[in-house]
């Protein structure tokens, strides 16, 4: 009754055979492993190697300089490095807090049912789609020392006596960077929180209302606990973004004035491509990576897998 020719014996490397099915997994993952090895793992080792050499501009293939801890020793003894750590920490805290506040607020707002909600949702998250460089162009002009909108507003509102020299004043420059980053960063929090909010079953709220819970109680005892897992991951992702961001600070202030906005990322880049200290730069970069990994492991613990 069969109309099937027995072809199994003739196929070359018949991966459908039960004994060979598991081989396909290795074959399919091989290209990715090779790619990652070539463009991530190997470069990482090169960077790690560089961080232990006193090199200015490395020439790959040339004989490496002897192993030395000089870069790390220099780092830990330099005020610049500790200042960069402090600036990074400040920026991470301020931007993450600001993004979560605005992001969560906007998410709760558009989680209400009303006509035009789709448009409002799109509008609120739009900054996410604006490329960082363009966001910087906008804010750089709004923070312009002579004709910027924010300076003028500050004067009009009586917050400042005269136009604020945002980019040449250390304190002001920090806030210019922070505000730009919050504007660019909060939509991600908002999008994630909204997705989290919408996955909370409406039954819970109905049940809570039957039990006589008020608006605040429902937020405190239903929304927040159920949103926590999403919010936790989002906070860590935002934090990592601030930690590693380069373009916003680089183009807005260049890390200045007087390094007041120089984060570890900016320091890494400038050591390499401004001062041509590739060894030192690699050392800062390696430490940044270590801090990132430790911070996210500490904050998420075993849940850190969900960061994927």
């Amino acid at each position, binding site marked *: 009754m069969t109309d099937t020719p027995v072809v199994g014996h003739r196929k070359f490397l018949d991966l459908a055979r039960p004994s060979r099915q598991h081989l396909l*997994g290795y074959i399919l993952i091989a290209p990715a492993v090779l790619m990652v090895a070539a463009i991530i793992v190997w470069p990482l080792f090169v960077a790690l190697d560089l961080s232990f050499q006193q090199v200015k501009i490395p020439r790959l293939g040339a004989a490496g300089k002897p192993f030395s801890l000089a870069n790390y020793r220099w780092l830990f003894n330099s005020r610049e490095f500790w200042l960069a750590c402090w600036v990074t920490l400040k920026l991470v805290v301020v931007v993450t807090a600001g993004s979560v506040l605005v992001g969560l607020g906007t998410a709760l707002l558009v989680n209400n049912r009303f006509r035009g909600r789709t448009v409002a949702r*799109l509008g609120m998250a739009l900054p996410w789609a604006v490329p960082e460089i363009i966001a910087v162009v906008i804010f750089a002009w709004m923070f312009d020392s002579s004709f910027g909108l924010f300076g003028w507003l500050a004067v009009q509102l009586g917050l400042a006596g005269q136009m604020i020299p945002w980019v040449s004043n250390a304190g002001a420059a920090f806030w210019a960077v922070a505000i730009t980053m919050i504007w660019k960063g909060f939509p991600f929090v908002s999008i994630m929180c909204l997705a989290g909010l919408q996955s909370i079953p409406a039954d819970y709220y109905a049940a809570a209302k039957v039990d006589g819970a008020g608006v605040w109680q429902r937020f405190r005892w239903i929304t927040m606990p159920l949103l926590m897992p999403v919010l936790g991951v989002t906070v860590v992702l935002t934090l990592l973004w601030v930690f590693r961001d380069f373009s916003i600070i680089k183009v807005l202030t260049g890390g200045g004035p007087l390094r007041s906005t120089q984060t570890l990322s900016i320091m890494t880049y400038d050591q390499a*491509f401004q001062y041509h200290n590739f060894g030192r730069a690699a050392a800062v970069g390696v430490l940044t990576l270590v801090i990132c990994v430790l911070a996210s492991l500490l904050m998420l613990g075993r849940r850190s897998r969900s960061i994927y």
Partner: protein
Amino acid sequence: MKRTLAQSLALYGVVTLTVAMILFPVYWLVVTAVTTTDELYRLPPTFWPDNPQWDVFVRVWEARPILKWLANSTLAALGSVALSMLVSVSAGYALSRYSMKGGATMGLFVLTAKMLPATLLVIPLFSIFSRMGLVGSLWTLVLAHSTMIIPFATWMLKGYFDTIPRELEQAAMVDGCSPVGAMLRVVLPIATPGLAATALYAFVLSWADYAYARTFLVNSPDNWTANLGITTMQGEYVTYWNEIAAASVFVALPIIAIYLFLERYLVGGLTAGAEK
């Protein structure tokens, strides 16, 4: 739940105000572009110019190689997305379907790779690309952007494949497909929305890059990407904010359009990992 009229009005008021504040910078970009230089450098600032000079877009388009910048950005993005998707689709599928020795290690590694600061990786990549004589070529971006895309795309796609029941491939294999045939004929067609979301998100990621473009291409104006091009317009001697703003509109437009029309896909990709 019915709202009273007052509650409705309050809600609409708050929503409108919030959206207006959030979108104001975007509005300001357009206003700045169409304001004459004279009006621009004056206080109080002009909230809407008397004679909007719409021809600024034509002038900037002619004065600067904006089309070339956009083309370079697109080329780099298409190249890195194509390369990354090729390896990520197959790797994501393997991680979803096969339990392999070292799979957990791979997971841990990818986690770390997602935290890699571009400013760290750019250092060895610069050495390597210099040595290979690639610096100045768009290929540097294809490879460098792949370092960002492959880790996230692999896990995003693994997540999508996890939602497709294995029985579908098993049925296909009983029906006579090879395992690769089952993947190509059954799983990939079903995963198309997921593939599209991942590719789209990867495209946006690549398009947004500045660090790699600045490092590898700064001395090759022919290969400048849009982001790099824009920054070169700033502060040569005087900054013509209206022209920068006009050029910025050109650069932001493609991504904003993608966002507005394909938001569901992008957001789907963004939140895929977090809801589990």
